[in-house]
């Protein structure tokens, strides 16, 4: 028993070590390229949660809450990717569907007149439905025609974006404003902040965390999640077992679409007052990173999302306060992926634990056998 726990601990430590090594690589690069490496590092690593005052360092609550707020949409997109990738459906449409979810949520937030409470629910549900419906397109193209969902969903992102921009420009724009944006949302549709201090940390995060639990249960404790995973592991096996593979392929992508739609609408109604996205918001791509870091396991999505949000903020601060460019984030992420993906990373240490455990088990077994022998 304790040996199992030790292995779990090892795996967590391994993840931490991968991140640590990636940061070391980043450090090395910063030292190589920067004239003020220490300042850069300080902002990268500590900046997100600590403010540097002349009097010393203080914990920066506001900044920390902003990071938490930034996790909300990426938790949703990460979950969406987890579900779709688990079925081996490499659907990249999350990006467009999040934007669409935001747009649908915004429109209903502007033009519907409902009581608060009900208003948000209706907006989010509508975004979920639209998101699910849109993902039917790549899903059905895959099932009916065998078209690669990766290609169709990728192209779909841009189609969605330009359709939204078209309607935003010609139908829903608030002409009184200089920039192209919609009219403001009704107050009843806004997702309220948890603490009203301008960090925009809304109840959306709580909803996101609830969805983490729901999706984890869905994937590992329901027949649909089971079917999705089996289709993902071996489609021939799933088919032969009697699982309706086509339906499951569609289901996984529709759920991915719904999650993306929800994420988009919550983000929009939580952190904005009008719809003003002029391009793809980028959360869909981050969702892929998050899902990979979480190894497609919903439970790890919040951790991964937190990490990415932290890193993002750190790189931002670093690029503002030092001469290291923001693009460093890409290098750090790539390094982390490499260490994460390297199965053999630290394998020696793992093996040592395992061998020790196995030897102990065998010794115990043999002792038990000889004891039995003596008794009889």
């Amino acid at each position: 028993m304790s040996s199992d726990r030790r292995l779990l601990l090892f795996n967590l430590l391994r993840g931490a070590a991968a991140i640590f090594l990636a940061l070391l690589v980043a450090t090395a690069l910063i030292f190589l390229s920067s004239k003020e490496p220490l300042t850069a590092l300080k902002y990268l690593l500590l900046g997100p949660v600590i403010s540097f005052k002349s009097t010393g360092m203080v914990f920066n609550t506001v900044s920390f809450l902003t990071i938490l707020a930034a996790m909300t949409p990426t938790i949703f997109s990460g979950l969406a990717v987890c579900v779709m990738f688990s079925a081996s459906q490499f659907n990249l449409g999350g990006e467009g569907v999040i934007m669409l979810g935001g747009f649908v949520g915004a429109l209903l937030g502007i033009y519907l007149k409902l009581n608060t409470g009900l208003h948000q629910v209706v907006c989010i549900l509508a975004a979920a439905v639209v998101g699910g419906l849109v993902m039917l397109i790549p899903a059905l193209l895959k099932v009916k025609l065998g078209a690669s969902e990766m290609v169709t969903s990728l192209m779909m992102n841009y189609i969605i974006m330009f359709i939204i921009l078209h309607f935003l420009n010609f139908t829903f724009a608030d002409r009184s404003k200089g920039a192209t944006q919609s009219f403001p949302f009704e107050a009843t549709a806004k997702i309220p902040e948890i603490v009203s201090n301008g960090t925009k940390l809304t109840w959306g995060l709580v909803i996101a965390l609830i969805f983490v639990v729901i999706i984890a249960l869905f994937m590992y404790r329901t027949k649909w999640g089971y079917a999705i995973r089996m289709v993902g592991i071996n489609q021939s096996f799933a088919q032969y077992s009697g699982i309706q593979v086509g339906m499951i392929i569609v289901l996984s992508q529709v759920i991915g679409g719904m999650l993306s739609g929800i994420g988009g609408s919550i983000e929009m109604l939580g952190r904005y007052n009008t719809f003003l996205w002029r391009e793809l918001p980028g959360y869909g791509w981050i969702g892929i990173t998050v899902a990979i870091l979480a190894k497609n396991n919903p439970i790890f999505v919040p951790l991964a999302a937190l990490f990415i949000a932290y890193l993002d903020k750190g790189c931002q601060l670093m690029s503002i306060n030092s001469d290291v460019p923001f693009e460093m984030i890409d290098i750090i992420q790539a390094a982390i992926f490499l260490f994460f993906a390297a199965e053999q990373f630290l394998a020696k240490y793992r093996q040592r634990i395992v061998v020790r455990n196995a030897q102990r088990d065998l010794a115990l077994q043999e002792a038990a056998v000889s004891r039995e022998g003596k008794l009889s």
Partner: protein
Amino acid sequence: MEQENLVVQMKGISKVYPNGIAANRDVNFTLRRGEIHAIMGENGAGKSTLMKILFGLEQPTSGEILVNGEPVVINSPNKAISLGIGMVHQHFMLVPSLTVAENIVLGMAPTKSRVFVDYKKAVEIAEENATRFNLRIDPNAKVVDIPVGMKQKVEILKALVRGAKILILDEPTAVLTTQETSELFKELISLKEQGFTIVFISHKLKEIKQITDRLTIMRNGKSMGVYETASISEEEISRLMVGRDVVLEVIKDKAQPSETVLKVRDLEYTDRWNKKMLDKVSFSVRKGEILGIAGVEGNGQRELVEMLFNLNVPDAGTVYANGKSLIGMPQNIIRDQGVSLVPEDRMTYGIADIASIEENVISDRFGEKRFNRGPLFNMREIHQESETLIVDYRILAKSRKQQVKMLSGGNIQKVVVARELSSQPTLLIADQPTRGIDVGATEFIRNQIVELSRNGSGVLLVSADLNEVIELSDSLIVMYGGKIVAYFEDTDQLDDITMGEYMLGLKHQTEEEIAKVCYE
């Protein structure tokens, strides 16, 4: 003198897998030049592991290896190949989307003059070696389309083409018919005479006695000793392996067939090379009987089974199970009719390799009421189901959570069989059900099949193992060239020789005699 003859010495080899399973424990193993050496042992005894270590696929936790007297570290298959060691794995390691010829030359050192081995050259190499070693293959066929028997030969050729002098064959005969096996044996003996050293893993005692010089017996990760094959009896071997006497005789009372469960009429199928694989195949399976299909691999059995489970669609003909047409039906409907299938190719259809044993045994029943409570799984029921199956079918595993791909070959097969036999089918299609399973477990599975049929299920048994079809079936059909060429209502009087004549197409019954297998 003795030392010089030893091409391989493995001393004190131990192996602990990353999941904590001690698969080899202080094993000593030697190979003499030019011998055929068997490794025997139950499923999960550690045979494949030991050979994977010799082939550089796994690293030993401790122990040393000497090749030709020199201590070596074999840290990769490339190293093994450079030492003249080749291996044919228990599960095929071919690239399905490439052709036979491409697979044979895959990854071979390119010649100086060009970087890529061109396709024509590949075919040439394949054909040349195929003739030289007398292994019949179709170099231009895609591996995904060829039967397992041919895959086996491709694997052997792959090793030989790379210059292997020591050839490790992990259960090569599990997939072969009697004829193919004796063909292979002739080849192995001629290889041996040319100075090749061969390691031969098999669960079939007769084969071991027939072809090997020495044998090493393994049990529970340990070596139980090395023996001269001539000086040890079959009984002794199985006692050393299992720890008890094994009777491989099936005890069954006479079948009492009742109504038909499966009605196949005039099935026709022409494959993509325009070869007629099924030619007006008609037969019935009745409740309470085991109908065997005998035949040399590649005579339509595989296609037939595929059609019965809608894994492929026939050009013409009908298939009815319990009065319901199965052609074009999704597998959940087929399974709803009480049809279950132990597939020939366990790795493709039978399992989800990185899923747990538990997840694998519930794949056909996870939707049932008893496993669900509202929208959620009833985990307790699921745990119980899998624990029961693991115990009943003697699946050797650390726990139900163990990934199936980390089981030994025979234990993977047990996972498939456990699921398919425990679903209380009205019709069980068993295609090579005991492939790769050790004697003890084979005995158990055969008895399970008999019990199923005596409790009223219909069983269609396809097996390359002639002994198995004759022993286990109540009645039997023989397929040759996509046709049914004989029907024996009673298998009691049958022997290998008569069967052989039908299987090789030397003899066939009249249409009337064959038509008797069509019950309404």
